[in-house]
């Protein structure tokens, strides 16, 4: 005969057992569901990847076969879009430690090359027979890649089905991505990695071409400075005269060997200044001090920024845009560009140098400068490779290249140098135009008279910038 206490214990034990079982079952179902969702997402990515690559292959083939420039541009642009989509799916297809560097680079480069060719055609330039041949060679690579991945997708699904059937009979408690499917995937991806590594990349001028991926060096390197000199330059730059709790110096290697001087305050905030070893120019600087509510106007901040630039011997810089920052909009960053002159039959003409942008950030609480960045200026301004010639196209000829229904706002177009790629820039006439309520900057190539770039101007209470 069980006592009352024993009966309670048995009940308690029963409840705990039920709870544990129920909890375990719920956790198992959730984990299984999560694994299946992940497997489904990976398979979807793989099948999408195959579809995008098939579309890419067809797009490249049609571009080569099309006779009209408009059709060629359409197929080349759609090829680029399929490459972009394939790049995204490639990162989600799910592999166990297989290096996909080769396939990623290959797909990105094919898209980049297709886009460069379509842009050439759009500007009225000719795609050379060699470039078409390069495209055909890349198309063969895409075909090979697609074939391997299509077989991989089939194998992974087949292995998945077989493995799951066997698995279900043995132990339902271990549902997950079957090993066979995973092995098929990894084998397929290893195969495409080897294939893409064996395909030579085209020699061309696009964002992903070798020369444009390399970090750029100083345009005008000076004599080497010492660590002590760098420290002195850094401490006298953003907060001259301030005493810090500690100062440390690290080095930055790469295209612009630099010293990174970090000056810390007792409250933990710091001023970090990067100084180029060759010549001692400050590349960039920030002050991490938390800032208070805005107390000065935009114009006062603008004046503080100009004062700062003048104190650093920058002359002739023109403001080209500004943007408020921070949730409380208590900081504002201004962008400036320098200018130079070119001689024309009508006299010297001022040229804005957009690649040489300098940025200054001002805190709107006290007007303090809180960040400075002249990396672009240092790698572009005065570069020996920049040779500016007088424009061939006159302002009136450039105006005639504009779309006829645009309303030109500026009385005279502005001559400027605009960046096309990190290593490529062109001289262009800049027109500020309106189309309905929208404002644009249209750039007409000053050498060819063709429309080069169209930017939309976004102007509101938080800033004025182009996109």
């Amino acid at each position: 005969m069980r006592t009352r206490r024993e009966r309670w214990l048995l009940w308690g034990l029963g409840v705990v057992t039920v709870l544990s079982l129920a909890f375990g079952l719920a956790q198992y179902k959730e984990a299984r569901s999560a694994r299946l969702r992940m497997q489904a997402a990976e398979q979807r990515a793989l099948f999408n990847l195959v579809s995008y690559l098939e579309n890419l292959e067809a797009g490249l083939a049609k571009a080569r076969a099309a006779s009209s420039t408009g059709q060629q541009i359409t197929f080349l642009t759609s090829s680029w879009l399929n490459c972009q989509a394939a790049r995204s799916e490639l990162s989600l297809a799910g592999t166990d430690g297989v290096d996909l560097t080769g396939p990623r680079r290959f797909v990105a480069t094919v898209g980049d090359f297709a886009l460069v060719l379509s842009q050439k055609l759009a500007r009225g330039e000719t795609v050379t027979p060699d470039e078409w041949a390069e495209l055909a060679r890349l198309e063969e690579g895409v075909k090979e890649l697609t074939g391997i991945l299509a077989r991989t997708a089939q194998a992974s699904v087949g292995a998945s089905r077989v493995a799951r059937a066997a698995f279900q009979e043995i132990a339902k408690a271990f549902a997950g991505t079957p090993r066979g499917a995973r092995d098929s995937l990894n084998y397929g991806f290893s195969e495409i990695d080897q294939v893409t590594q064996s395909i030579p990349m085209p020699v061309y001028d696009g964002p992903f071409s070798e020369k444009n991926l390399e970090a750029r060096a100083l345009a005008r390197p000076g004599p080497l400075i010492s660590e002590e000199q760098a420290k002195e330059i850094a401490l006298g730059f953003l907060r001259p005269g301030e005493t810090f709790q500690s100062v440390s110096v690290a080095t930055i290697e790469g295209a612009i060997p630099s010293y990174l001087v970090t000056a810390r305050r007792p409250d933990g905030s710091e001023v970090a200044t990067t100084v180029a070893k060759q010549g001692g120019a400050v590349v960039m600087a920030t002050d991490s001090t938390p800032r208070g509510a805005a107390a000065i106007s935009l114009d006062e901040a603008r004046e503080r920024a100009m004062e700062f630039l003048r104190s650093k011997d920058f002359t002739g810089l023109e403001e080209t845009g500004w943007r408020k920052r921070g949730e409380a909009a208590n900081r504002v960053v201004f962008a400036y560009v320098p200018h130079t002159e070119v001689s024309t039959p009508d006299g010297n003409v001022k040229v804005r140098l957009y690649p040489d942008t300098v940025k200054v950030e001002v805190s709107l609480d006290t007007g303090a400068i809180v960040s400075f960045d002249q990396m672009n200026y240092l790698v572009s301004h005065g570069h020996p490779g920049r040779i500016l010639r007088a424009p061939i196209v006159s302002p009136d000829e450039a105006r005639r290249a504009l779309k006829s229904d645009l309303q030109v706002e500026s009385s005279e177009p502005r001559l400027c140098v605009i960046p096309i790629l990190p290593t490529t820039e062109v001289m262009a006439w800049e027109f500020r135009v309106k189309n309905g309520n929208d404002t644009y900057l249209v750039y007409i190539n000053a050498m060819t008279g063709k429309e080069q770039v169209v930017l939309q101007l976004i102007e509101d209470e938080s800033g004025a910038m182009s996109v």
Partner: protein
Amino acid sequence: MRIKAFLCFGAAVLVVLSTTFSADMPRALAAPQSWFDEYELLARVIMGEATGEPFLGMVAVGAVIINRTKHPEFPPTIAGVIYEPDAFESVTNGLIWSANPTDEMYRAAELALSGYDPTYGCTFFWNPYKPVSPWIWTRAIVTQIGNHVFAY
């Protein structure tokens, strides 16, 4: 006695149900809404990867993510880079949704998005004081900021 047993069983069911739903609730509440943009996402990864690092180290982590979007070996968008499987531990373990970024982290994300890059184009970073894949040491190290080294 039957009532007590019923109550115990009911409690067990409630516990199981609450466990099942509570696993999803924080994710649902913390998931990105339509007004969240890449700036928010970047600030959250900076929080996940660079909490405790100096301000410049936070900017540098943001810059690495931006640099990856411009490199052919990585996805072309910030979200693509951040959500790439196993790319960032703080995304994999959900740390990026465990708290809200500080003002300093948001500012670091703003600077990185505007092109401020103290790493000069690096696409990798790691903590050399923690166990990492030996492969990562084959990359060319450019600098160390705080507890992270940055490499091409």
